[in-house]
């Protein structure tokens, strides 16, 4: 044990000196400085790979700040000491510039840094002009990329679907940016022609992606265990849809045959998109492109839950409203495709939910809330002007324009194949006659699917009126929100939709004065845009459950085992807002679903009868054996696996310096060898007055 004692003694010695553990700084700490940022990673579909990857060892490039377009020329015209790493502000991060950088080749451009300087940025959307173009209705009218007028994302550059030969690293923190700029100014930004001769400030980005070529290849390689420890190359994008009904559905008791349990229930399907997309890992809130829709859906749910009479007192007691938020819609409608796939197979809701499966016959019609960029001109889209569509449009407008609510909105309609890229497309693709109505605004989002679609983009300011957000308010009571504030816009639209649905369900016009509560949307946006540690989420979770992180939840669909934050929170919120309180049931008995115990607004805790549930949002392509990856029937998006994202800046020695060092070393080595050999071989001459020589070699050789 004496070693232990030894070790112990040493630790003791250290403790003796308190925490003052002498920490010498290693040389490398002086050489490198790490840079915090977000990396662009690689996604694959059935036929292509998109995104970026560094080299296996990490890509190194000499920093070069691009202030104006002209600065790029220096890099593109045979730069003196390649490879370089341009630092590009967003307004220069255009398709044209990026393509030129790609053309310059990895030996000239090895890294691209996107620095967060949005001052002169006008637009920043790297989604296609026609989002989800290839899984939408195959009709020229639906979307025309070449014609901005009819495209659904006129500002899109499509870079999100490009494959870059270099890693792109997004640096949001201004301190990091100043670090980079300082380094650039100090070492690089003078005498460009002598770059080759001096050490330059360089950046190394490590974001090596395992997958390559296409989902087909990487899934095949992942499934095929070709040695003791098979390695994972990519995961399919996978999330969870969240759905809930206004009225609880009766629990299926017997596991009888599918066909005879098909009920005569009739659902109005209200849906929206849950996720968003961006180029970089972990950033991008999708505030305008999908969060507004989600907010409206929640509001509508809350309204209907409180306005509607009990199901029994409806004219048709089999009617119900099914709210579904589809996940992974940004990547070829993963969620809705899976929903359709399940419904076709009587697999929705999943068996474990113990509810009768829903078929398309059960769905009365679908109201899909798309992207509502501009509340002012919302359109009701449908393939054809069915009476149903006309009726709903008329109802909507009646409330939108009715003076007693003063929403002063006008909802136009467009009955054509020019359908926005929303979940409804999946349903219409299956059956063009499917009664799908889409609420969608004229595209006005210049930051669609980008890291800049954030709080500023929707001009949201948190009022933080810590008031009860669940109760409905009188139409006149605006809680001090300005009429043009986001909260009010959401309130208006959601009220209109809710009233229209109310009329559809009950058959009689809504005459009450209660409308949606702007405070709810205020809280909602705060939670999803600023901090998950917020009153709404607290109210919607189990009392005393861990608080959310003080940052907005990630809304990227991510992969299996990824942080399913947004779906988790949505699940709780819908569960909370769409459930009926059960005052009689004590906390102890309120454990098994559908009963669930919520903290409630004041945190007191209340037992509620919930209806919400998850359904899988994994593309059917990964369920079907020998699925034809090129068929384009289903979404085939996968995300490559990677080990780490890291970036660090340092001084890259000039090749001259290196070569000189090396040659000096070699010369020294050779010289010393010759010298030592000669000396040792003839040492008895050198040290004459000694009896014997200390030569280790046989007799002297003449020189």
């Amino acid at each position, binding site marked *: 044990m004496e070693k232990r004692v030894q070790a112990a003694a040493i630790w003791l010695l250290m403790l003796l000196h308190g925490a003052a553990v002498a920490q010498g700084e290693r040389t490398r700490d002086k050489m490198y400085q790490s840079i915090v940022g977000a990396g662009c990673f690689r996604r694959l579909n059935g036929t292509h790979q998109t995104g970026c990857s560094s080299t296996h060892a990490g890509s190194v490039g000499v920093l070069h700040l691009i202030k104006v377009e002209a600065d790029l020329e220096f890099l593109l015209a045979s730069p003196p000491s390649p490879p370089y790493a341009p630092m590009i502000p967003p307004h220069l991060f255009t398709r044209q510039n990026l393509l030129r950088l790609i053309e310059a080749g990895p030996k000239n451009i090895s890294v691209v840094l996107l620095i967060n300087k949005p001052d002169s940025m006008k637009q920043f959307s790297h989604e296609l002009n026609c989002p989800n173009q290839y899984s939408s209705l195959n009709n020229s009218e639906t979307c025309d990329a070449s014609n901005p007028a009819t495209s659904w994302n006129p500002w899109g550059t499509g870079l999100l679907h490009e494959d870059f030969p270099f890693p792109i690293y997004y640096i949001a923190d201004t301190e990091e940016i100043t670090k980079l700029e300082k380094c650039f100014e100090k070492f690089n930004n003078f005498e460009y022609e002598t770059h080759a001769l001096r050490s330059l400030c360089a950046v190394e980005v490590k974001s090596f992606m395992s997958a390559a070529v296409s989902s087909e290849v990487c899934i095949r390689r992942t499934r095929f265990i070709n040695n003791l420890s098979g390695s994972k190359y990519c995961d399919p994008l996978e999330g969870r849809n969240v759905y809930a009904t206004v009225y609880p559905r009766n629990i299926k008791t017997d596991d009888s045959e599918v066909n005879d349990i098909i009920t005569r229930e009739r659902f109005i399907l209200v849906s929206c998109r849950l996720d968003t997309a961006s180029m970089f890992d972990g950033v991008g809130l999708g505030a305008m492109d999908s969060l507004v829709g989600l907010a409206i859906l929640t509001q509508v749910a809350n309204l209907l839950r409180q306005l509607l009479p009990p199901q029994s007192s409806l004219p048709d007691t089999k009617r119900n409203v099914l709210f579904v938020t589809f996940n992974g819609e940004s990547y070829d409608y993963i969620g809705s495709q899976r929903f359709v796939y399940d419904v076709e197979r009587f697999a929705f809701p999943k068996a474990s939910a113990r509810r009768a499966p829903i078929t398309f016959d059960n769905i009365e019609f679908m109201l899909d809330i798309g992207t509502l960029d501009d509340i002012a001109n919302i359109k009701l889209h449908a393939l054809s002007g069915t009476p149903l569509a006309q009726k709903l449009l008329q109802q909507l407008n009646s409330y939108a324009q009715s003076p007693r609510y003063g929403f002063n909105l006008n909802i136009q309609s467009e009955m054509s194949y020019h359908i926005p890229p929303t979940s409804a497309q999946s349903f219409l693709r299956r059956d063009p006659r499917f009664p799908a109505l889409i609420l969608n605004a004229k595209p006005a989002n210049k930051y669609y699917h980008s890291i800049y679609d954030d709080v500023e983009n929707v001009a949201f300011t948190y009022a933080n009126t810590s008031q009860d957000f669940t109760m409905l308010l009188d139409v006149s009571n605006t809680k001090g929100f300005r009429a043009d504030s986001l909260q009010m816009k959401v309130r208006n639209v959601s009220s209109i939709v809710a009233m229209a649905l109310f009329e559809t369900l009950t058959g009689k016009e809504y005459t009450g004065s209660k409308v949606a509560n702007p405070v709810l949307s205020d809280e909602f946006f705060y939670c999803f845009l600023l901090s998950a540690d917020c009153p709404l989420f607290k109210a919607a979770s189990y009392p005393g459950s861990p608080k959310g992180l003080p940052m907005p939840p990630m809304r990227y669909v991510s992969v299996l085992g990824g942080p399913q934050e947004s779906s988790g929170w949505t699940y709780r919120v819908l569960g909370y807002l769409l459930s009926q309180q059960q005052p009689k049931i004590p906390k102890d008995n309120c454990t098994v679903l559908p009963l669930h115990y919520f903290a409630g607004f004041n945190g007191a805790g209340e037992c509620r009868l919930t209806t919400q549930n998850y359904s899988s949002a994994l593309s059917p392509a990964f369920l079907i054996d020998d699925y034809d990856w090129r068929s384009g029937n289903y979404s085939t998006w996968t995300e490559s696996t990677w080990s780490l994202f890291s970036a660090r800046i340092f001084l890259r020695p000039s090749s001259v310096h290196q070569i000189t060092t090396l040659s000096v070393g070699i010369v020294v080595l050779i010289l010393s060898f010759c010298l030592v050999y000669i000396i040792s071989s003839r040492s008895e*001459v050198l040290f004459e007055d000694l009896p014997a020589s200390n030569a280790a070699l046989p007799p002297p050789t003449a020189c």
Partner: protein
Amino acid sequence: MTLPEFFGCTFIAFGPPFALFVFTIANDPVRIIILIAAAFFWLLSLLLSSLLWFAIIPLRDVLAFGVFFSVVFQECFRYIIYRILRSTEQGLQAVAEDTRVTDNKHILSYVSGLGFGIISGMFALVNVLADMSGPGTMGLKSGTELFFVTSAAQALSIILLHTFWSVIFFNACDTNNYLHIAYVIGSHLFVSLLTLLNASELYTATLLTNYIITILTGLLAFRVAGGTSRSFKKFVTCQ
């Protein structure tokens, strides 16, 4: 990857000692063992000095203090290993495969000195070298890109110096030549303390003086080991 830099510095620092090892040590087991033993003793001295440095917290940042004591410890251990070698000389005499080891007592001192030098050079440089194999070089926050080359050069001079010192020291101990002993300790102290200036990047000053001292010490060692100007002439003119 600046592997060139890495190899360059490695060759600069360890090329000469490696050559010495190959040609004068490698083919005699006894010498190898003595070499390693010397290295071990140097380790012990380093351990003691760093313990001292570690124990006296307030002076941790005053490197001169630690340097001074480590020099003292090293010289003490040089003496200890001298005693040990001399006391085991009889045994060695019989043991040595080629009698030269014992016939020429300078060889013992030379070998142990080389052991001292190599291990100290390694300890000084090996981590720096390891860090060198990355993509970057010194100078982002502090220091210059000359850092590595100068470190290597310094290490080389230290390695050679240790060798010479041992030769002089042992001989001085044999002949009670206190002047030489004083010179060894003094020059060792001087060189080590001089390298403190490296922190302020006065490389020319430190390197030049160090190498001058190295040469002087080398000459002294040469004399001590029985070389003379005449023999040198003979050597050069290869008679």
